[in-house]
């Protein structure tokens, strides 16, 4: 990590990334504030809380319990059920070894990463590698990825296997959940590819076809589907490339700007104002800072959603849009057409509403 980014975080250790947080980076790619905070590893939920705008990103215990139960069931008896469903899905024999590199544990990070490299370098025979520890460069810093994933090495190719406990009913699943899973899987594919490249292997040995293992219909029986994540991969690469330039951005910030959580709310809010945000209603379900950013964006047309902003001719604020509609503001050159439409709309609403 660059010194500029490190400084922003103050005394707190960086928040660790996982596939979910990296996947979330693709959520609002235009937002500098988020890019800087994420690149610096600032704990956004804590920050939001500290400045008095906590979000609600809780997860139900029931959902977690079911997810864990499903995973345990698949992995029981040397992954018997998982092998069965993978064999059926990929039409390949998923027999072979099973290596679990262990649970989330800070002390073993480097050891686990070494083991992962060894296993993948070996690249012989079919094997299931559980909890491999991967790394990815995010904004100039090397982050460890703790994937809840199994890499399936089969016939010389690697497939990422994601286990999710949502249901596929009659071949259809919640599309939002599937696309979230696809982005996460793409993070793993990318990290695996970079690792293989470092080891001197052909990175394309990691397939862009990932396997999603879900529950089927209303049972706890597994069903596997193959997802092509090429599109997600290119979005992700673009976003990571963009993030790389964030360190320069951070370096350009005044020396007083800090997100050290030991600071008071007023200082933190002032620091936030130095980094430009691009709030959209989608943030509410994607970024822990959303309640604050929404508050800050009040009165902007963007806060009403992209379709509203576009239909208002791309005008920035509600007040400006209303003034153009009422004819009390003179439109700028590029607003003439939008202003005429707004005035006509205002006349119609006055006549009819």
């Amino acid at each position: 990590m660059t010194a500029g980014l490190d400084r922003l975080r103050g005394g707190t250790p960086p928040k660790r990334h996982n596939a979910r947080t990296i996947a979330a980076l693709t959520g609002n790619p235009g937002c500098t504030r988020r890019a800087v905070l994420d690149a610096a590893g600032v704990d956004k939920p804590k920050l939001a809380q500290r400045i008095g705008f906590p979000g609600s990103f809780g997860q139900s215990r029931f959902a977690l319990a079911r997810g864990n139960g499903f995973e345990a069931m698949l992995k029981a008896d040397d992954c018997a059920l998982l092998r069965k469903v993978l064999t059926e899905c990929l039409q390949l024999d998923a027999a072979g070894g099973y290596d679990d590199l262990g649970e989330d544990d800070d002390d073993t990070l480097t050891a686990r990463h070494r083991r992962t490299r060894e296993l993948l370098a070996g690249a012989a025979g079919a094997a299931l590698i559980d909890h491999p520890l991967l790394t990815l460069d995010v904004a100039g810093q090397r982050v460890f990825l703790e994937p809840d994933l199994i890499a399936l090495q089969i016939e010389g190719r690697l497939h990422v296997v994601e286990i999710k406990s949502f249901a596929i009913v009659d071949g259809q699943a919640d599309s939002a959940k599937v696309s979230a899973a696809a982005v996460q899987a793409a993070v793993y594919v990318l990290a695996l590819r970079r690792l293989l490249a470092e080891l001197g292997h052909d990175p394309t040995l990691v397939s862009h076809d990932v396997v999603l293992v879900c529950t089927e219909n209303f049972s706890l029986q597994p069903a596997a589907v193959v997802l092509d994540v090429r599109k997600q991969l290119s979005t992700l690469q673009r976003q990571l490339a963009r993030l790389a330039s964030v360190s320069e951005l951070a370096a350009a910030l005044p020396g007083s700007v800090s997100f050290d959580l030991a600071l008071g709310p007023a200082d933190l809010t002032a620091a936030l104002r130095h980094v430009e945000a691009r709030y959209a209603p989608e943030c509410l379900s994607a970024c822990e800072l959303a309640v604050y950013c929404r508050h800050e964006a009040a009165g902007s047309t963007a806060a009403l959603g992209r379709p509203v902003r576009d239909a208002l001719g791309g005008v920035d604020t509600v007040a400006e849009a209303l003034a153009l509609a009422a004819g009390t503001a003179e439109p700028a050159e590029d607003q003439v057409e939008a202003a005429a439409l707004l005035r006509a709309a205002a006349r119609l609403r006055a006549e009819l509403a």
Partner: protein
Amino acid sequence: MSTLTALARAQAYADGRAQPIATVRHLHVHPRPLVLIPLAMAGEAHAPLAALVGAERSAPRLLIVAQPRNRDHRFAFAAELAGIVLPYVDSFTAATEAVAVDRGRDVRHRFTDAPQLWVPNTGGVDFLRLFGRSTRFRSIDGEYAVPPSVPLLGRWLTFFAHAAEMPGSSLLLNAVQALGLHWATGQSGAEDAQLAALLAWISPPPGRTGAEAARAAEDPALSPPAGPATDPAFDNHVLAPLMSTAEPDVAALTEVLRAQLLPTWELMWRTLDLLRELPAGARVAGRWDSDRDTYSGFVQHLAEGGPPQPRRDGAVAAAARLHRLESAATRYAVQRAFDDPLVMAEYRLVGAAFAGEVTLANADRIDDTGKRPVLRPRIMVVTGEPVRVEPGATLTSPQRPSQKALVISVTAAGADRTEVLLELSGGMGRKLVAEPGSVPAVGERVLLTTLSEAYRPGGAFPDPDQTPWTHGGPPPAFTPGSEQADQ
């Protein structure tokens, strides 16, 4: 989004209160609807946790599943729900009416009324669809037998969920969508999805702006979510301790679930009150007639022992259904515009409709160039609104829907005035002299649009058992009890 609706959102933001985007109600509100608020168990595959249901505001019935992972408990819940839904849907079969078909050469019968279900949001609709899916194939005998009412409930829920996909149908409605059709708030569509926040903008409590009330309504501790997803904090701190025991305390569970559901119950009935205050659009009754047709057809299908809806439509059924959905969507959009000047205004804004004044009218003009002389009056309409129609286009007026107006010429007259010369046909009686009032008179304000209510013939699809092999061949017949081990 149209500029008109976007402007209404901007005005709502500035005023701190939702703004109307419709002058009439575009859906049927039943005098005795069945309100149903389902809650699902987090993490489970669409397993019910509770439901608050009833056709009377003062008498909500609470159903709960004390152990959602237990199959027997789930089906007991389904049977209980069936005990409420089935008598309700059966209660509209008392009277029928005859409807002429085939130009009066034949009659068929339909029920004079039909059921109407209300859920809070689209999640509620999805829940009913999936709950219908999980129950309609259940076998009523054998090892995993369920009471006969359970698969029947599944078939009804599936019927309603399918109806909800049909634009303009009022058989299953959701409060969020119904309100959003009539009001624009000063927040985003994503935030509108929360019923409490949406209603806060539409009718804020006294002394508060819509924005303030909406923010307050976002706190799940004050306004529990309208389902089917529960508040994670409620799950973790209230539900989990009560459910983690082998023998859950049913009385305590009932109490906390009722407390989660009752606020939404109130919001549902407030939604109905608000919608009832609006006068119904002229074409709403006609669409409800179609709903009664659909309902009557399904009752008959059940009475004849027809099979449950298939898991997935076959190729022919899917194509035919898509076609029906598309034409329903077009028809619904046109009907709303014809019923509601504020909806029509959206078309005026983009030049697909214009209002103007009749400046010339030749009401008894006869065209005798053909075999027979025909009545073809011409009128000149002058408008200051944008006109995006070409000569040769056919226009209609909501004031005279059965009359066609052929555009003869469009001429710019001055800076922002346009003269449109129109030739009229139809809707003037059968004689060579127009019925009084059937031709717009000089000085009359008229509205003309390219939208048309004209009937569009359906596509021709083969019978399902003639499905070509390229489309998977004929679908297999239903075999009962094929899904025993599904859960």
